[in-house]
C-alpha cells in the first residue's frame, strides 16, 4: 500500500487512492463524514473511518487531534453533528452508550467505569443482573463471569467474587474487557490501554487482544506509543486537528513517517523572542522521586523558560506538584539558590518563592465566586501578611498594580472572576503569584482553553517575567507552544525525564523522545 506523506512545510497532504480498503467485502464498521463541534469550535471535520472484522486498528494523533471525541461518538457517548455510522452496512444511531453496547460496540476508557467496592461479577452484570424469581441469581452471575474470565485466560488470577478495589490496574482493565465481552462485543475500543501498565502487563494485554482478534473481534486502539502500535495494529488511521490524514497499513510505514503524518503543520504562530542571557541556577533537583516519579534531575535558571513535554500520564503534572510540595518528593535533593531546601507543602513552596498556575484554573487556581482583588491576594493573605489582609478590604493600590502588571481586562477589581474570560482568569492566577513575589513559576498548560489573541498575551507576560529574573517551568501538550516558548525542553516519559533538547528542537524529536522511539530513529 502506498504511504501518505504530509509535507511539514506546506501542511498539504498527499493522499493516494485508498483502493486497498476495498476488496475484503463490506467493512464491519463504516463512519462517514463525521463532524462535531463543541461550543462552536470544530473538533472533528469530515472524518471517515473503516474497520474490518478481526483487525486491530490504531487511531493516532496528537493531544487534541480528536481521537477521543471520535471514539465517544462511536460508543454513543456523544452524538455527531453530521455524518453517518454503519454497522455491517446498516446505518445505526446511538443515543446512549447502552444502545451502542447492545449493537456490539463497547469502549474501555482510560478511567475505568468500575465500582471499586463491588465484586467483579457484580460490576460486569451491573444493571442487568440475572434473577431467579425476585432474587439475584448469584450463582448464574458467578458462573457467567467465570466463563468470561476463562475466555480471557485469567480465571486463575481473578475470581468472580474478588472485590475490584483489591485488583491491580491491569486486572481491573481485564475486568473491563470481560465486561465488554459480556455484551457480545464485536468492536472493542480501547483508549490508551497501556498508559498505566508495566511492560510485562502490556505483553499480557496484547496476548488477550490477539485472542479477541482471532475470534473476529475488531479492536480500535488509541495510543501514543509508536512501538506498541507497530506491535499490535494492522492498520493505522491518523487524525490531525480534527481531520483524518490517512489510513495506512502498519507494515507500510516507519515510525518516522507516522510522526510526520501526525505533526505536519506549520510553526506559524507568533512567539516572543527568546532569552538573550540566562542567569544563575535557581533550582536544582537531584534524584527526586515519589510514588509516581523517579530519578528526577532538573535545573531551572533565572531568566529561562524551560518547556516540559511528554504524553498524558508521563508525569508532568506530578513533577509540578512535587516541586510545589503538593505531592512532595520522598527521595532526592532539592537545592534553592544552592542551599538544600525541604519543600513539604505548598505553603513552604510559596514561602520559598514558588508559584503554580495549575492546569485546572477553575478548580485549583481560583475561587470563582470571589472578586478579582480577593483572588489576587489569596496566596499573599494565606502567608499571614497583615498589611495585605487589611488592605484587601479597602481595595488598595497594590491590587491595581498587579492588575496592570498582568494587563488584566476586567470591569472592576470587585468583579467576580467567574465572569472573566479564560485568558483574563489566567491573568488573575498569575497576579496571585506576582503578589507573593514568586521567582519560580510553574505553568501547567498555561494557554489551554484560551483563545488565540489572549494566548499571545500570556506568552508575552511569561517572557517578560523571565526577562525580569524569574525561572519558569512550562508544561504544555501543545508542541508548537513548547517549541515556540522554550529556551530548553525537557521531555518526560514513564515518570522520569527521558531527555533534554535545545531550543531548536523539532516536534518529531520531542514525540520520539516522549514515545520512547528515539533509539529506533537514531539507528
Amino acid at each position, binding site marked *: 500500500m502506498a504511504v501518505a506523506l504530509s509535507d511539514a512545510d506546506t501542511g498539504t497532504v498527499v493522499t493516494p487512492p485508498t483502493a486497498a480498503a476495498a476488496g475484503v467485502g463490506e467493512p464491519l464498521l463504516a463512519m462517514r463524514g463525521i463532524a462535531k463541534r463543541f461550543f462552536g469550535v470544530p473538533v472533528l471535520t469530515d472524518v471517515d473511518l473503516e474497520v474490518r472484522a478481526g483487525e486491530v486498528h490504531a487511531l493516532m494523533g496528537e493531544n487534541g487531534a480528536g481521537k477521543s471525541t471520535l471514539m465517544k461518538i462511536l460508543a454513543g457517548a456523544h452524538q455527531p453533528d453530521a455524518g453517518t455510522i454503519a454497522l455491517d452496512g446498516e446505518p445505526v444511531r446511538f443515543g446512549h452508550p447502552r444502545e451502542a453496547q447492545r449493537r456490539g460496540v463497547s469502549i474501555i476508557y482510560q478511567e475505568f467505569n*468500575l465500582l471499586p467496592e463491588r465484586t467483579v461479577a457484580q460490576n460486569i452484570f451491573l*444493571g442487568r443482573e440475572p*434473577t431467579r424469581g425476585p432474587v*439475584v441469581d448469584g450463582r448464574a452471575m458467578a458462573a457467567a463471569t467465570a466463563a468470561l474470565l476463562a475466555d480471557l485466560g485469567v480465571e486463575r488470577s481473578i475470581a468472580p467474587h474478588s472485590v475490584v*478495589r483489591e485488583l491491580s*490496574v491491569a486486572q481491573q482493565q481485564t475486568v473491563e474487557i470481560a465486561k465488554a465481552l459480556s455484551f457480545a462485543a464485536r468492536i472493542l475500543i480501547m483508549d490508551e490501554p497501556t498508559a498505566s501498565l508495566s511492560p510485562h502487563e502490556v505483553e499480557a494485554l496484547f496476548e488477550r487482544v490477539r485472542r479477541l482478534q482471532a475470534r473476529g473481534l475488531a479492536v480500535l486502539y488509541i495510543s501514543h506509543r509508536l512501538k506498541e502500535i507497530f506491535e499490535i495494529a494492522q492498520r493505522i488511521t491518523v487524525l490531525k486537528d480534527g481531520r483524518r490524514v490517512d489510513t495506512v497499513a502498519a507494515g507500510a510505514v516507519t515510525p518516522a513517517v507516522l510522526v510526520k503524518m501526525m505533526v505536519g503543520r506549520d510553526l506559524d504562530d507568533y512567539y516572543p523572542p527568546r532569552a538573550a542571557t540566562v542567569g544563575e541556577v535557581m533550582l536544582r533537583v537531584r534524584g527526586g522521586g515519589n510514588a509516581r516519579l523517579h530519578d528526577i534531575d532538573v535545573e531551572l535558571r533565572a531568566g529561562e523558560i524551560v518547556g516540559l513535554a511528554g504524553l498524558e500520564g508521563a508525569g508532568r503534572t506530578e513533577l509540578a506538584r512535587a516541586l510545589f510540595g503538593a505531592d512532595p518528593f520522598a527521595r532526592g535533593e532539592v537545592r534553592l539558590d544552592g542551599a538544600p531546601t525541604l519543600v513539604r507543602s505548598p505553603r513552604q513552596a510559596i514561602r520559598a518563592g514558588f508559584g503554580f498556575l495549575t492546569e485546572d484554573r477553575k478548580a485549583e487556581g481560583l475561587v470563582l465566586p470571589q472578586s478579582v482583588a480577593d483572588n489576587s491576594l489569596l496566596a499573599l493573605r494565606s502567608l499571614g501578611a497583615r498589611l495585605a489582609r487589611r488592605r484587601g478590604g479597602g481595595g488598595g493600590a497594590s491590587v491595581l498594580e498587579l492588575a496592570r502588571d498582568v494587563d488584566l481586562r476586567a470591569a472592576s477589581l470587585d468583579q467576580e472572576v467567574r465572569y472573566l474570560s479564560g485568558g483574563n482568569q489566567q491573568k488573575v492566577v498569575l497576579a496571585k503569584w506576582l503578589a507573593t513575589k514568586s521567582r519560580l513559576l510553574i505553568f501547567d498548560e498555561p494557554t489551554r482553553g484560551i483563545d488565540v489573541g489572549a494566548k499571545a498575551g500570556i506568552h508575552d507576560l511569561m517572557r517578560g517575567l523571565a526577562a525580569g529574573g524569574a525561572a519558569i517551568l512550562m508544561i504544555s501538550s501543545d508542541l508548537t507552544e513548547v517549541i515556540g516558548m522554550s529556551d530548553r525542553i525537557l521531555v518526560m516519559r514513564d515518570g522520569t525525564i527521558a531527555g533534554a533538547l535545545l531550543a531548536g528542537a523539532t516536534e518529531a524529536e520531542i514525540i520520539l523522545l516522549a514515545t520512547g522511539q528515539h533509539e529506533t530513529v537514531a539507528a
Partner: protein
Amino acid sequence: MIAAGATPGRAGRAWRGVAASDGAPIYGVLALVALVSWTAIIATGGQVNVTTTLIRSVALGMVAVGQTLVILGGSLDLSVAYQVSVTAVMASHVMQGDPDRMLLGVAATVAIGIGIGLANGLIITGLRVNPFITTLGTGLIMRGVLNASFDNFAGEVPREFQTLGYDGIGPIPYALLLFAGVTLVVWALLKYTRFGHHLYAVGGGEETARLSGVRSARAIVGAHVLCSLTAVLTGLFIVSRLRAGAPWVGPDGNYDLESIAAVVLGGTALAGGRGGVLGTVAGVLILALLDNVFNALEVNTFLKQVLRGVIIVAAVAAYARRARPRRARGA
C-alpha cells in the same frame, strides 16, 4: 479498640471472607467492648443482663438499619426522629385503647411512613434537593404539625398491643425477633436483590451506574421508603413500651444523629457505596454497651457524651486509615 480494628487476627480475616465488605471487623471490636464493659460491670458488683441491653438496642437498631439503606445509596435521612414521633402519636391516637382498632392503627402509621419516605425520596431525586436539606425540612414540617396538633400524650394503645414491647416467645422478646427480622430482610435485600445491587452502585458511583443503565432515582426512593418503614416499626415498638405516644419521643431518643453514628461506626461509608447492615447492628450494640457500662459505673452524664463523641470520631478515623489504598477511580 482502634488497634483491634486495624489488625484483625486470623478469625477476623475469615470473618471478612464470609461477610465481605460488610464491616465484619467491627464484630471483633464489639466482642472487645462487650468483654471490657461486662468485666467492668461485674468488677464493680453490678449485674450483666444481656437481654436488657438488647432490648435497649431495638429502637435505635431498627432506625439505624433503615438509615444504612439511605446512606449506602449516597443519601441521608435526618427526619427519622420525627417519623418515630409521628408513628407513636398516630398509633395511640388511632387505637384509643381499643384492641379492635390495632390493625387500623398499624395500617395508618405504615401508610404515613410510606408517604413520608416517598416524599423524601422524590424531593431528593425529582427536585434535586440535597438529602440533608430535604430531610431537615420534612423533619421540621413534621415537628411543627405534631406540636400544633398534640401537646401531650395522645390516646393510648391497648394492653394487647403492649405485648410487642414486653412479651416474647419463651425467653426471647418479640421486639428482638422483630429487630432480627428487619435486619435479616434488609440484609437479604442488599445481598440478593437487584434493588440492593443497584443501591450500592448508585452510592458508589452514580455515573457508572447511570452508564450501566441503572435507574438511580428508583433505588434512592426505594431506600427512603424502606428507611421510613423502619422508623415506623421503631415508633410502634416505642409506643408499645410507653402505652401512649407524645411528640417528643422521637427527638428525645436522638434517633436522627444516633442512627447515623451507628451506621458510620458500623463501617458504612457516609458517602455511600460501601458497608452493610451487619456492621450497623454491631455499631448499635457497641453504643448500647457503652451506655450500659457508663450507667453501671455511674459516669457523669456530660462525660458520657464526651466519651461517646471521642469513640465515634476515633472509629471513623480508624476506617479512614484503612481505606487509604488507592481506588480504581481515584487519581
